[in-house]
């Protein structure tokens, strides 16, 4: 496919995120029923379908994700769309919000590729569509939160309040969070989800500053709720919120050692925050933190360059 480089890179990261998504414990539970009673989801999930069925679907999604990382082609898109849909329309590994968003993005790209043969000219239009899918998803999430339980400043009722309680625990603060912080967190979380993407896109001069804030938000969410795949998919959207030339400037940071070394040091510091986790989760968080550091460094660099030019 003749995609622009940021759409191409975005798809490769999407493949990496899909690997995160299917590498959760529930997947192993599907294949290894002896562990069913130990893990937290539904014991015996595999009994609703045969092991062979799960094996075929899992292998299909897994190979599709690898294919997307290696080379996002039309065939790979078709492959992953079929197996992803099979997974979704049966008892899937993990039916969570972002899975439908990811499948939607992949199907949208596939259909766009079929309709528009010369896709490099259409990259901007495809990026517009992906932004729209994400915006509608975030917007719906914010609308659902407009209910009487979510707006109670009580960590047992509202996730917005729970995040603050968890943050105080993680930061080892000896005091309980005050009630006004719960209310603030509830308001900020709803406002952020509903408005983040349109506000970032409406900004011209301070867009990079807004994206840095966007990335800090997802780091905070990961730190408190430990959901690496959901936050990963949300984080990589930042690539599609900038122009092609800006992405080229960020990509330069991937060069060793000028760009890569400081990013790795930064990433090590980020990983340190996740050291309480173990096994697969720690490894996923490590990859997450490296990419987050890379993007943060890139956006900060461009922001300062813009400020310098303006002055």
């Amino acid at each position, binding site marked *: 496919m003749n995609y622009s480089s940021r759409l191409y890179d975005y798809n490769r990261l999407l493949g990496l995120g899909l690997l995160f998504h299917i590498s959760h414990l529930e997947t192993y539970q599907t294949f290894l029923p002896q562990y069913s009673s130990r893990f*937290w*989801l*539904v*014991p*015996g999930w595999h*009994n*609703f379908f045969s092991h062979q069925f799960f094996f075929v679907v899992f292998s299909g999604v897994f190979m599709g994700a690898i294919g997307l990382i290696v080379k996002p082609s039309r065939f790979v898109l078709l492959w992953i769309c079929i197996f992803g849909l099979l997974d*979704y*329309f*049966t*008892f*899937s590994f993990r*039916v*969570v*919000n972002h*899975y*439908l968003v990811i499948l*939607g993005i992949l*199907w*949208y790209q596939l*259909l*766009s590729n079929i*309709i*528009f043969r010369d896709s490099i000219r*259409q990259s*901007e*239009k495809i990026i*517009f*569509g992906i932004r*729209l*899918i994400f915006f*509608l*998803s*975030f917007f*719906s*999430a914010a*609308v*659902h*939160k*407009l*209910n*009487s*339980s*979510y707006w109670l400043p009580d960590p*047992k*009722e*509202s*996730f917005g309040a*729970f995040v603050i309680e968890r943050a105080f625990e993680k930061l080892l603060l000896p005091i309980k969070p005050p009630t006004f912080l719960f209310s603030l967190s509830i308001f900020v979380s709803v406002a952020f989800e509903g408005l983040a993407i349109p506000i970032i896109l409406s900004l011209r001069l301070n867009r990079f500053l807004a994206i840095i804030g966007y990335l800090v938000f997802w780091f905070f969410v990961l730190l408190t709720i430990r959901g690496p795949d959901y936050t990963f998919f949300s984080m990589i959207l930042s690539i599609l919120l900038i122009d092609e030339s800006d992405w080229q400037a960020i990509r330069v940071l991937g060069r060793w050692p000028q760009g890569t070394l400081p990013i790795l040091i930064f990433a090590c510091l980020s990983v340190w925050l996740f050291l309480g986790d173990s096994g697969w989760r720690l490894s996923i968080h490590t990859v997450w933190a490296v990419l987050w550091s890379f993007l943060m460094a890139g956006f900060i660099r461009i922001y300062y360059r813009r400020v310098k030019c303006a002055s």
Partner: protein
Amino acid sequence: MKTSSFDLPWIFLTTIFGLFFLTHNMFPYLGYRYEGCQTMYSSLKIDYQRKINNHFFIPQWAFTDWGFYLDIKGIQVQPQVSLDKKSLFFIDFLRETKSINLETFRLILDYLCPQQIRIKIYLTDFREQPFFEGDACKESKFRNWHLLIPIQLFPANERGELKRPSS
């Protein structure tokens, strides 16, 4: 963005996709499903039978009963000899669990009932009101499961987590 006649298929495709997403995400209010509709961590609570929810302004409909969850208050299964592994799992599952999705219950009965198994069960709704008592295999409302879209076996807790209730 400049719009030419060539852009019409793109506009059509993007509009269809946008509408699909928005409609799918509004499924909880229509009674079709709750999971995967961006409802995680939203504390949105829905009572499909009474057609009420805790949302500030969106009303509740229930065009299907696919989203119903029922409490199992008592169960007797006969006979239990010479059953395959899957049947035994389903029977154990019904005995152990406290709540079950109606569509999942239909799916289980679809497998068990043709094997001449009698399942006497007492089900209530969330208000503890009786929903059904008797032989589930003879009841027409438990026949024919419809749902291809997956649905969780247990109701989510207030944080949207799929945790199995302790039995």
